[in-house]
C-alpha cells in the first residue's frame, strides 16, 4: 500500500466522524484533493476485494470507515454496540418538514402537521438533529430551524440533495426548495419567459 493510502486509512480509522476529502488531502503536503480521492478509491477497492468487514462510506460531506451491515445484529447481540432509541412518528414528521422547508419556523411546522410542535422540536434539538439557524423577520422574530450535519450522518446522506426529489414521491405537491446547482440552471432559463 502506498504511503498516502496508509495515511488516509490511519486518519479515517482514528476519526470517529466523517472526514472531508480536503482534510484527507492536507495530511500530506505533497498531495492534492485528486490524490486523496484516488487513494480513497484504492482503499475502498482493497476493502471490497479482500472482503474486509469494514468499508469506506461517503457520508455528511465526508468519508468514514463503517462496518458492513451484515454484522450489525451480531455486534448488538454481543452488546458491543448500543442502538440509539428510535425517533417517534411525530419526531420523524417534524424532521421531514424541516428538512424540506428549512429554514422554517415553528408556526409553519405546526400548520403542516396540524399539532403543536414544541416538545418535538426540543427533543430533536437535544439529539442534535436540528438547530436554530436564524430568526424570521416576521412578528416576534420567531426562531427558524434547519437540519444539522448529524442529521445527514444519522440518515446516511451525503448532503440534502440526497433527500427524495418531489418526482420520486407518489405525492408530489410541494417540491423541496432548489438545492442542487442544476436547479440554478433551470431557474436561469425561467426569467427568459417572464
Amino acid at each position, binding site marked *: 500500500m502506498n504511503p498516502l493510502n496508509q495515511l488516509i486509512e490511519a486518519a479515517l480509522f482514528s476519526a470517529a466522524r466523517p472526514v472531508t476529502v480536503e482534510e484527507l488531502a492536507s495530511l500530506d503536503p505533497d498531495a492534492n484533493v485528486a490524490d486523496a480521492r484516488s487513494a480513497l478509491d484504492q482503499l475502498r477497492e482493497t476493502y471490497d476485494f479482500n472482503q474486509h468487514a469494514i468499508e469506506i462510506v461517503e457520508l455528511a460531506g465526508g468519508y468514514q470507515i463503517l462496518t458492513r*451491515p451484515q454484522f450489525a445484529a451480531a455486534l448488538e447481540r454481543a452488546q458491543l454496540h448500543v442502538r440509539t432509541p428510535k425517533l417517534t412518528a411525530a419526531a420523524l414528521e417534524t424532521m421531514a418538514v424541516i428538512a424540506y422547508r428549512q429554514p422554517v419556523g415553528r408556526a409553519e411546522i405546526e400548520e403542516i402537521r396540524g*399539532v403543536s410542535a414544541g416538545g418535538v422540536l426540543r427533543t430533536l434539538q437535544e439529539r442534535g438533529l436540528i438547530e436554530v439557524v436564524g430568526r424570521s423577520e416576521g412578528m416576534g422574530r420567531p426562531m427558524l430551524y434547519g437540519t444539522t450535519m448529524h442529521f445527514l450522518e444519522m440518515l446516511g446522506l451525503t448532503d440534502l440533495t440526497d433527500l427524495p426529489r418531489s418526482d420520486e414521491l407518489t405525492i408530489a405537491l410541494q417540491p423541496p426548495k432548489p438545492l442542487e446547482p442544476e436547479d440554478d440552471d433551470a431557474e436561469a432559463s425561467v426569467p427568459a419567459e417572464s
Partner: protein
Amino acid sequence: MTDTIQATAPAVPGEGGFVVRLDGFSGPLDLLLHLLREQQLEIADIPIASIADQFLKTIDALGLNEAADYLEMAGRLLRLKVQMLLPRHGEEEGWEDPRAELVRRLLEYQQVKEISLWMEQGIEHRAARLGRGYLPPAPEVPPAPLTFELLELLQAVERVISGIATPVLHRVVPRPLNVEAATARIAALLRERPRISWLDTLGPKPTLTDVLSTLLALLEMARRGVVRIVQPAPFAPIVIARESTEPIN
C-alpha cells in the same frame, strides 16, 4: 353527494363497534388520513359529513387536554360540513369547493408522512453500519508507580526534617478534676460569709476543669448536708448557704 358515498362505504361503524387507539396517531391529520384510507376514500373528494361524524366519535375517547389539536380539526370539519350543506347559487361558476384547503393540507401531510417513512428506513439502514464508537475523553491517568532507592527516601526524609526549625515537643499531662481543692475553697468562703453565690465559688478565670471540680464539690457537700443550695426564683442566681455550724471539711 354524501349519501352516495356513504352507500359505497358501508364500513361506517355502528355504535360502540368502532375502537381506535388515538395514541397511535401523530395528529388530527394522521387520524383523518387513517379514516379515509380505512374506507378507501379519495382525499380529493372527501365526504365531509360522514368523516366529520366519525372523527368526532373517535376523538370522544381522548381526554380533553390532549385532544386540543383534534378538537380544532373537529371544529373545522363541522364548519365545512355546514358549508357543504348551504345551497349553492350560480352553480358551477364561481363556486369554490370549501374542502379545497383541507384537501391541500391532507395531500401535503401525506407527503410529509411518506418522507418520514423514507427517513425512518434511511436511519435503520445507516444504523446497521457502525462507525468507531464515541471515545470519551481519557480519564485522569494515575501517576506512575514510584521507583526509588532507599537512600533517596532517606535523603528526602532528611530534607523534610531539616526544614523544621526546632522540633516542638508537647507532653500531654492529664488534668484530673481537683474536687478536694474546690471543697477547701468553698469551705474557706463559707467560713467568712454564711451565704455565697455560685459565681463566688469559682475562682478568677475558671477553666472548664475548675467549673466541673467546683460543681462536683458543691454537690458532694450538699449531699453531706454541709451546705444548702437554693435558687430563690427560676433563673435567679443560685445561693449556697452554710447548713450547719459543724466544722466543714
